């Protein structure tokens, strides 16, 4: 187990997964692995034979169809953010949670910074590998930036308007 810390389900914990880089072509080490998408597909038989857990990581714009049948059973999917301003991973997360019924750990990696955490959690991420040069304790605070939101989302499937007690105009607090 590494001494890298991540945020998982709102708590800072030691990361018990090892993320393999792109182009990894050696034998798989023991332990829980997060494998790049193309290797996950091309060495699927090898991975299936392992007894330990295997997750997959991808870019926000990667096509999910090659693994669509496997997604529901995966323990972990990581989405890599090359830049925090690349918002494609947010839609991918929504699709994983809603369209593919993914229930495992959904982890944000790459340029993961404090001020993106609130939205990332709303679209379905429950784990955050905060960029190494940033203070993870500080980043954790972002998860409570807002106590209410308008839209339906993974963390709150009912939009505010379905939950809001209706006020008559003029009686609003």
């Amino acid at each position, binding site marked *: 187990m590494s001494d890298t810390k991540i945020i998982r389900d709102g708590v800072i914990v030691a990361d018990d997964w090892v993320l393999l880089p792109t182009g990894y072509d050696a034998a798989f080490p023991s332990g829980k692995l997060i494998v790049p998408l193309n290797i996950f597909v091309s060495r699927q038989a090898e991975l299936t034979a392992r007894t330990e857990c295997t997750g997959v990581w991808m870019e926000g714009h990667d096509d999910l169809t090659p693994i669509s049948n496997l997604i529901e059973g995966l323990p972990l999917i990581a989405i890599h953010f090359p830049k925090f301003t690349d918002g*494609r991973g947010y839609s991918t997360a929504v699709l994983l949670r809603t369209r593919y019924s993914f229930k495992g750990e959904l982890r944000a990696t790459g340029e993961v910074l404090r001020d993106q955490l609130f939205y990332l959690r709303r679209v379905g991420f429950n784990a955050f590998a905060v960029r190494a040069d940033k203070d993870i304790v500080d980043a954790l605070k972002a998860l409570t930036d*807002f106590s209410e939101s308008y*839209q339906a989302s993974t963390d709150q499937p009912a939009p505010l308007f379905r939950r809001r007690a209706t006020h008559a105009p003029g009686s609003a607090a």
Partner: protein
Amino acid sequence: MYKYDSIDQQIVDERVAQFRGQTERFISGELGEDEFRPLRLQNGLYIQKHAPMLRVAIPYGQLSSTQVRMLAHIARKYDRGYGHFTTRQNIQFNWPKLKRVPDILADLATVEMHAIQTSGNCIRNTTSDQFAGVAHDELIDPRPYAELIRQWSTFHPEFAYLPRKFKIAVNGAIEDRAGTLFHDIGIHTVNDVAGNVAFRILVGGGLGRTPILGHVVREALPKQHLFTYLDAILRVYNRFGRRDNMYKARIKILVKELGLEKFRAEVDAEWAHLKDGPATLTQAEIDRVAAYFVDPDYAVLPTIDAGFERHLVDHKAFARWVERNVFGHKKSGYAAVTLSLKKTGVAPGDATDAQLDAVADLADEFSYGEIRVSHEQNLILADVKKRDLFAVWQRAKTIGFATPNIGLLTDIIACPGGDFCSLANAKSIPVAEAIQRRFDDLDYLFDIGDIAINISGCMNACGHHHVGHIGILGVDKHGAEFYQVTIGGSQGLQAALGKVIGPAFAQDEMADVVEKLIKTYVALRHEDEHFLDTAKRVGMEPFKASVYDKKAGRREAEVAHV
């Protein structure tokens, strides 16, 4: 107008706290410039030539007198005593200090205002018709739907980091006063065949570097599907819009590259999963929001007011102001008044703190305490009794907002330009002023009639130059400021993009150029023929001849040597 409940207020208050923290972390160096930039932009804060610029949201252009007084207070306390109303119904402050911006936001929050998503690559402030709810030609009041969209788009977690900015406009009248054809999404509130409220959805319009008119992607979307359908469009755009080139990143380029049919198929495929899901609007929510937009307690008045009619006869100047600045109201005995922020010598759209306070007073006395902002950068009192028009005119004169020029040549639409904006290639304000000074004869202005002149300081087209009857675009030619001229553009239902007449001009030539174009029009027009119709009938040549007049070759040579 809409009033926040405790939850709306809490969200805005929490935003103030969040942005205060972000600003403090930036000032302390904890947050780098590249990390802070998208955060401050999503809060309307630019770093400009002289100081930061803060753009405050005015959702669909609606303000209460309390809010207008707060804008005056902010101009006085944190700025240099004035603000600038924009072509998207917002207001900008040009001189705030970065460290005071959280305090400004805290003050704004006390009157249910904010700067959320007024810039950045996210869903921007939703705009609408400045006469929504009172227009004589309105089919369905668009304001409840604009407010619903405001709430849906506020902090939408999936669409905060889009390929590029995203603008939505909603129109509910026969005439399109919201520029819906030039928005990323334009929405028309319509009745479907059964008489129910539905939406015609247009997508992929926009100005900027690649001006394109929007296309109808859905003809009559039943109202309960508004959010799920918007989610589907935005998801397709967020996933497939180009991110490799910021000039090709707007949704209009995606629609163009896919083709409308393919784009529609992608949206429909996505929507099939979302339709009838939890984000489906409920009638209870539509009713809750619509209840804030019911008519005020109008008096029962005759259509004709004798005093008003007498003043029209007695005061030619008043009659002129009524002709240009008063708009037909749906309610008998009432009118909507446009206060002109286009007085010669003042930057178009600028208002001082004292003027704002005076407008708030006028609204309280004569118009149910409400004010609207138009995308033409003027202010509107929407519910004035005809019998009060003379008093409103006299009061408006004392604050400098009674110039009788709405829709006339001097009602120029202009961005802040090179005087303030760091994106600009050229200045806008001095060009507007030179043109206004040249056309200082009111009789001539009235004779010329409706002319829209739009000035943008760069290709970003904040002055909407493509849709000006005469459009002026600041361009950079080897480091010098030049101006390219288009004619034939228009907004509204007959929207069209102007065509470039030829090589660009120097700043000091612009008043001459506009004067020659107008003289050509006046000489060639048939009786009561609008500029656009004359331009269409006679073509570009007479206009070109008037401004280039054998000089064209020389001018090209000059430009080449600049």
